[in-house]
């Protein structure tokens, strides 16, 4: 069994105020950076690879492997860029906010180490506009780090320099997609780019660029400070480290917890979230933000990690669960999700902008009691038309994940909507838009 260390969150203050530089250093901060600077960039990348850190933004790509794809050495193009993806706009996901607000130096240290590993010259933090408290904390922390020589032309006399800039987005979910994020940073509409070429070789302004999630980067100082084996030992599975898990919905204690990677959903739900509110029963959960497939009671004992959830037809995603109870309408919930995806489609490819609008309208009609038998087949068809590979990026396939699994698990609920020509959950004059 792993130890119960919580490297990412152990120093977060209960009142939410951020650690300033002195407090961060007293807690062992910037020791990982000092250690990294004694190593070569390739050794830093190798350490992260051996630690088994997989990206915490949802896709789970091995972080060290991502870094190793960047051209290195004297012949490499410059400037090279590192970007922290702090957009976090997926409904149900709220994990990075806590790290950004509570311990901004942890992210900054992780970014300096990552930038050293890929020999980046400039680093951007791409922050979602709604995180005002994080914006203040990060601005202050960047100034403190620059003042003390952790940022700037010459980091702690290493010969390596890094300029760090906080970019506050103007709001659009697609900005979380890494190539769309690059377009947004360049001052364009945030349409995704075709891959290949991948950003590691052709990214911001055509130069090599790595985009990493906030939680991913926050792990880096601890891996460097304590070693790859220590990091692997934190986990219950082969994916190294801890994970920020969360729960929202009608549970007794909604919240966010740092736990060993691979903690089962049932343990998170019952021990940490306190179980369902009195009078409610668990029906299903979307395990990792709005774009993951439902899991039911039968899958709650599966470890919440990247591979195990795949085996039961879902995804870890962000690890922040949305809980559906037995008194909330699953069709209404799916309508809400698909309205979000339809609205936030960038419109770049036809299956997404046209298909998602259609799906949203069909679900809306069903919820209003205007559904027809053929609608179920239309919805099933759309999940195939917008499957991975049929659209330009992952937004529409992500939108289809909860829908496809919902059509499977809640088939009787859909049929009741059609047969009874009403939403069975809206018996008390509840509002419908």
């Amino acid at each position, binding site marked *: 069994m792993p130890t119960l260390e919580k490297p990412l969150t152990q120093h977060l203050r209960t009142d939410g105020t951020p650690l300033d530089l002195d407090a961060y250093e007293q807690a062992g901060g910037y020791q990982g950076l000092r250690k990294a600077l004694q190593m070569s960039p390739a050794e830093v990348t190798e350490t992260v690879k051996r630690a088994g850190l997989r990206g915490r933004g949802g896709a789970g790509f091995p972080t060290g492997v991502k870094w190793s794809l960047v051209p290195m050495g004297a012949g490499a193009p410059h400037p090279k860029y590192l970007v922290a993806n702090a957009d976090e706009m997926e409904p*149900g996901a709220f994990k990075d906010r806590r790290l950004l607000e509570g311990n901004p130096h942890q992210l900054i240290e992780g970014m300096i180490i990552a930038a050293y590993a890929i020999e980046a010259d400039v680093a951007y933090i791409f922050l979602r506009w709604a995180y005002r408290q994080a914006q203040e904390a990060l601005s202050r922390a960047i100034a403190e780090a620059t003042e003390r020589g952790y940022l700037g032309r010459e980091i702690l006399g290493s010969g390596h320099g890094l300029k760090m800039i906080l970019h506050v987005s103007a709001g659009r979910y697609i900005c979380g997609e890494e190539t769309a994020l690059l377009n947004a940073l360049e001052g364009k509409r945030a349409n995704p780019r075709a891959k290949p070429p991948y950003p590691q070789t052709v990214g911001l302004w055509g130069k090599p660029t790595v985009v990493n999630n906030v939680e991913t980067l926050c792990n880096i100082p601890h891996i460097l400070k304590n070693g790859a084996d220590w990091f692997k030992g934190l986990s219950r599975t082969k994916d190294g480290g801890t994970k920020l898990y969360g729960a929202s919905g009608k549970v007794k204690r909604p*919240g966010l917890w740092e736990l060993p990677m691979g903690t089962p959903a049932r343990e998170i739900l019952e021990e940490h979230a306190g179980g369902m509110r009195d009078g409610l029963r668990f029906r299903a959960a979307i395990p990792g933000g709005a774009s993951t497939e439902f899991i039911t009671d039968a899958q709650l004992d599966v470890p919440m990690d990247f591979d195990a959830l795949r085996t039961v037809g879902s995804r870890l995603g962000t690890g922040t669960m949305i809980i559906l109870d037995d008194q909330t309408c699953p069709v209404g919930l799916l309508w809400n999700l698909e309205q979000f995806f339809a609205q936030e489609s960038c419109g770049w490819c036809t299956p997404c902008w046209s298909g998602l609008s259609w799906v949203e309208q069909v679900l809306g009609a069903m919820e209003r009691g205007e559904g027809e038998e053929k609608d179920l087949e239309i919805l099933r068809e759309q999940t195939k038309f917008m499957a991975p590979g049929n659209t330009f990026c992952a937004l529409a396939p992500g939108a289809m994940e909860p829908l496809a699994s919902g059509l499977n698990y809640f088939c009787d609920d859909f049929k009741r909507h059609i047969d009874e020509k009403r939403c069975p959950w809206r018996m008390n004059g509840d509002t419908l838009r």
Partner: protein
Amino acid sequence: MLSPEEKKEIEAEFTHYPTKQAVCIDAMKVVQKHRGWVSDEALRDVAALLDMAPDELDGIATFYNRIYRRPVGRHVILLCDSVSCWIMGYERIRGALMERLGIRLGQTTADHRFTFLPNVCLGACDRAPVMMVNEDLHLDLKTEKIEKILEEYS
């Protein structure tokens, strides 16, 4: 005409990016901070400063959710309509706000005090339902709290 202060704030961003166009979103946010929204005239002025075509800049302005191309009230209410807030009673909160303000989503009160807008996830799902008024996040909303919250904004 951009004010000297607006121009200075926009030009301060030039050091952060290798191209002028990359500053355009920040530039529009500067204008919005000073004027509340981005008018056609302001958009043309920003485009000229950044060597961009006004239509190109408008295409970018209208893409992003938080650039306002129409006037807004003194206080902007952003009600989260995403899944966790929906589960936790978004519709009741929306109804209470519409009744109290006498307007629908997307509208501004006649006295220009409030603009009421829907908003995708505000990233506080464990404290749902939530809304932002200007820079302030209001958590664990209940219909009976609405009146008191609105009183804070004159």
